[in-house]
């Protein structure tokens, strides 16, 4: 592309950003002659340049535009219709420029439609464009064109651009090139006369003298500066071990200059945030038309600077948020008047620096977030259970709007409500290491607050060491550092291959960072030894745990030492390392050595932590389970026992008794073990798969009753019974374990006893034959909590029932529609989406399952509740954990069925 043309495009695009802004201002203050002049000058320059460059279509259109603006300047009243016309024609010009940029030639077509309208408003006829046409009629050389453009600018603004002075000076000395001649030829007037025409009162805006610099040149400069910093550091290091003071003076000066230089280059990369905001007034103006709302956009802190890379990344999220504020946030004019608010809604955009971050706030004075709507939508999307919701603070509920697919807009408009919004915004902000939070008050408005790092190229990082190698962790994801005290390793507990760190009575999983770092030497050792030897020996005296946050997950990384925090220059990783997800880049440390930058996201991924809200199904399921455990406010008594090094717990209600049996009397039977117990054989299950070396002759066994026969669970030691409220965390994904909890200050696994049922049923049944049942009731169990479902599955199956378990009423109804038949339905009352009450009354309305007896599971009892239960159509109710009563009830039902049969 022609250099002149390229420059023209770059400049014009910039000018248009300014025009949009000015036109919006003009619409608001139609009488402000300064604004009219500014807009006029901008359009005039574009028109002139189009003429020189031989772009007739653009020239014609801009000319018609200029004429209308000229009339405004001369005192014609500015009204909404005419500004709309100017806006439209400017949009058309932009379109043409875009095409020009792609095709390098002006595209064919006509703009007579707009030109006619513009001319009719300005009352102008065709003749005016003739004066411009003569410019292009001359065959001119590029040099002359360039001078003409500069002179044209001079005429326009009354001054010559500093970078153009040279050109014009050259021209003056250029033989055969006469400035006056050019001026005359192009009809360029003398600047002073023109200025006086425009008006004396106009204040001169100080021009910012700037040079356009290629970004790559800046990047290169930045690289050289960081190299300089390193060299300086090496020199300082060198000097430290010398007595000689000869160099110390100059070296310190070098050091200062280097720091200033670095700062300077950093600054050169910064841009005022206002650059990213220029489009916004126009967007708000268009929105206000579209939505029929009066909106006033207030921008504060446009001069706040941040790195251009960050600036580019946040531009789209910002536009999205502004649109949201205008569409969702603000009420309509009538609503506002009815509420006694000023009819014009405010959207306030503000930016400022705070502690190494830039804070951007997008606020509106609208209706505020609707907690009720958000809650309903969250329930609908199964992000949360009703009971968990009841305990949530408003702020927590607001956060659901950052979930994928979330939208509370009643109807989908052009503006918003498609549910592809805030989650993407949130993701974009987090991808640059920023965060987003919000405040909202009903009737007063909502305020979104973005916290962004100033730059991505230089980030603060924590330098740590593992296995003799240093790594950098971005400071933004580090929440806390915990120093492991000497000999106080009980801070960390081991549950199988998972380590847990206790911090202020909470616990979080800890991984030894070295386990992720497959180095050459480790590979070597691994070849020779069993892989197991890599579990970090926790008996070392000291170490640090770096607590890291990724999305909603917190986890600890055990490292050998922590050095310091340093501002590091981030450099990308070679494409040879694309497959390694735990590193995000490299950096050169003060001593010149390269350190790898750890990527907390990648580490979380390789640890298998998936973000609950972001990863769909599985995440949602986990969240529901965790909430379900919370939901039961009743105390669940559990028995805690030990197997090898881990502590485990089982709900007491499932256990029949505790025994100590003689080890020698445990006999192998195929793959299993049995023990002669009360006239029959009892299968003995060893949780960890093998007989553990209990030194004494007696083996502690937990006995479970299975109707008339028994099952024994061999353990190493029975510890205690706990009766306290606990939370179950589902961080383990291991069969036979429901989750983890803290009991008596120890991390404890909750055993999923139903998991051991299959191996149980493999064993020949040694029951006494007096029950003599030939028919087993088919039972449908509906409970959203995995914990209870598994517990009842175990109880009921072992009592001889055929049980189908589902996690929701909807799933149960699906079974009905598929034609399944059950003898009894047991349902939890408190379930998300469709409660047990709704479920029962739904079933009672349709003939298919109308007459199947239903038993409600409740965690508490009151006369009102019992009435409600009966009213819904349940035939009976049982307290959760009252296994015996449930079995008894089911037996009654069964005998009736047998009788009927």
């Amino acid at each position: 592309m022609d250099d002149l043309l390229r420059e023209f495009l770059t400049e014009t695009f910039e000018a248009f950003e300014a025009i949009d802004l000015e036109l919006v201002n003009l619409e608001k203050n139609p009488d402000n002659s300064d604004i009219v002049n500014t807009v006029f000058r901008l359009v005039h320059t574009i028109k002139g340049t189009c003429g020189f460059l031989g772009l007739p279509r653009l020239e014609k259109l801009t000319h018609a535009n200029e004429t209308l603006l000229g009339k405004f300047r001369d005192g014609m009243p500015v009204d909404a219709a005419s500004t709309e016309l100017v806006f439209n024609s400017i949009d058309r010009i932009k379109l043409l420029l875009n095409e020009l940029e792609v095709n390098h030639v002006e595209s064919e077509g006509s703009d007579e439609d707009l030109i006619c309208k513009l001319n009719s408003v300005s009352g102008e006829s065709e003749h005016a464009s003739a004066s411009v046409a003569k410019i292009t009629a001359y065959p001119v050389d590029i040099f002359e064109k360039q001078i003409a453009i500069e002179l044209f600018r001079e005429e326009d603004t009354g001054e010559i651009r500093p970078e153009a002075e040279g050109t014009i000076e050259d021209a003056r000395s250029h033989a055969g090139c006469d400035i006056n001649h050019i001026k005359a030829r192009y009809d360029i007037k003398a600047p002073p006369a023109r200025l006086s025409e425009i008006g004396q009162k106009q204040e001169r805006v100080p021009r910012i003298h700037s040079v356009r610099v290629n970004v790559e040149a800046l990047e290169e400069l930045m690289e050289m500066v960081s190299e300089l910093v390193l060299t300086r550091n090496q020199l300082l290091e060198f000097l430290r071990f010398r007595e000689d003071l000869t160099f110390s003076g100059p070296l310190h000066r070098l050091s200062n200059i280097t720091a200033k230089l670095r700062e300077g280059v950093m600054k050169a990369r910064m841009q005022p945030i206002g650059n990213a905001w220029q489009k916004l007034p126009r967007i708000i103006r268009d929105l206000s038309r579209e939505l029929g709302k009066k909106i006033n956009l207030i921008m504060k802190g446009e001069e706040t600077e941040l790195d251009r890379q960050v600036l580019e990344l946040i531009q789209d999220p910002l536009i999205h948020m502004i649109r949201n504020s205008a569409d969702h946030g603000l009420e309509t004019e009538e609503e506002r008047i009815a509420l006694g608010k000023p009819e014009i809604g405010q959207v306030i955009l503000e930016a400022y620096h705070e502690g190494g971050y830039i804070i951007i706030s997008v606020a509106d004075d609208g209706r505020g977030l609707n907690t009720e709507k958000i809650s309903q939508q969250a329930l609908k999307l199964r992000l949360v259970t009703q009971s968990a919701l009841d305990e949530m603070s408003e702020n927590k509920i607001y956060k659901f709007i950052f979930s994928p697919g979330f939208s509370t807009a009643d109807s989908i408009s052009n503006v918003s409500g498609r549910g592809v919004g805030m989650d993407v915004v949130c993701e974009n902000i987090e991808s640059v290491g920023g965060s987003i939070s919000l405040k909202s008050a009903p009737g007063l408005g909502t305020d979104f607050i973005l916290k962004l790092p100033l730059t991505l190229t230089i980030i603060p990082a924590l330098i740590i060491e593992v296995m003799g190698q240093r790594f950098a962790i971005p400071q933004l994801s580090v929440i806390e550092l915990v120093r492991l005290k000497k000999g106080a390793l009980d801070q960390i507990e081991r549950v199988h291959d998972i380590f847990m760190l206790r911090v202020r009575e909470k616990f979080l999983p800890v991984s030894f960072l070295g386990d992720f770092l497959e180095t050459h030497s480790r590979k070597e050792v691994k070849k020779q030894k069993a892989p197991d030897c890599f579990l970090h020996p926790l008996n070392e005296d000291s170490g640090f745990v770096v607590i890291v946050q990724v999305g909603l997950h917190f986890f600890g990384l055990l490292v050998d030492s922590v050095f310091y925090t340093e501002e590091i220059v981030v450099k990308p990783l070679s494409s040879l390392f694309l497959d390694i997800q735990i590193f995000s880049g490299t950096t050169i440390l003060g001593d010149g050595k390269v350190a790898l930058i750890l990527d907390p996201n990648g580490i979380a991924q390789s640890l298998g932590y998936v973000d609950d809200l972001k990863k769909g199904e599985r995440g949602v399921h986990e969240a529901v389970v965790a909430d379900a455990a919370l939901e039961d406010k009743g105390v669940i008594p559990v028995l805690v026992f030990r197997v090898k090094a881990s502590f485990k717990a089982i709900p007491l209600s499932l256990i029949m008794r505790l025994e100590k049996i003689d080890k020698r009397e445990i006999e192998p039977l195929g793959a299993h073990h049995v023990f002669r117990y009360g006239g029959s054989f009892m299968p003995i299950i060893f949780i960890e798969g093998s007989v553990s070396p209990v030194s004494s002759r007696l083996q502690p066994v937990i006995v479970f009753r299975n109707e008339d026969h028994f099952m024994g669970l061999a353990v190493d030691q029975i510890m205690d019974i706990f009766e306290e409220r606990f939370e179950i965390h589902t961080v383990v994904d291991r069969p036979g374990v429901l989750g983890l909890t803290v009991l008596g200050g120890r991390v404890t696994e909750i055993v999923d006893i139903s998991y051991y049922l299959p191996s149980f049923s493999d064993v020949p049944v040694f029951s006494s034959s007096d029950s003599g049942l030939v028919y087993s009731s088919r039972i449908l169990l509906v409970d959203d909590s995995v914990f209870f479902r598994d517990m009842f599955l175990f109880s009921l199956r072992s009592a001889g029932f055929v049980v189908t378990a589902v996690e929701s009423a909807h799933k149960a109804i699906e079974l009905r529609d598929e034609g399944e038949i059950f003898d009894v339905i047991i349902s939890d009352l408190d379930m998300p989406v469709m409660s047990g009450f709704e479920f029962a009354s739904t079933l009672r309305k349709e003939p298919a399952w109308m007459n199947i007896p239903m038993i409600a599971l409740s965690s508490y009892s009151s006369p009102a509740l019992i009435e409600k239960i009966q009213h819904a159509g349940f035939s009976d109710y049982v307290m959760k954990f009252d296994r015996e009563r449930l079995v008894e009830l089911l037996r009654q039902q069964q005998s009736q069925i047998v009788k009927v049969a």
Partner: protein
Amino acid sequence: MSPSLQCGPQVGVEHIILLADEHYFAFPIHCLQGVFIPSEVTEVPCASDAILGVLGQRGHIITIIDMRSFLGLAPFTDSSAGVAVSFEHMGEFYGFRFDRVVEILHLTSGELAPALEFENQSWSKFVSRFYFLQERLIIALDPIRTLERMLHSVIAV
């Protein structure tokens, strides 16, 4: 455009001759960014065996590839020694680590021999020519094809 694009077999051009486990290798000198002793190399955990690590030089990060390991030769006993020749490819910098530099030679067409069939098939992917010189077999490598082979093996893993 990267200078190493014209790094195919060329006669009448100065070549650097490098040694790795009794084999002689050659690169056209004009393709090189530099020759240096790799020190202070940072190992990259989880990377392929042939990658020795990364080091910083004049603000650039250079990935060092151990040619012995890459070519399937006997491992280098002293991992800290050796000499590296560096190249730029697609804006990234790479260093090939050999045992030592033997000499700088002007290779002429008379010494050219066609590429032989290799026992090790993968070699033929990046060896461009052979030269016989003073009773020695010199293997001329194409740095770009070598790097592409390297990248390919990473993506394939």
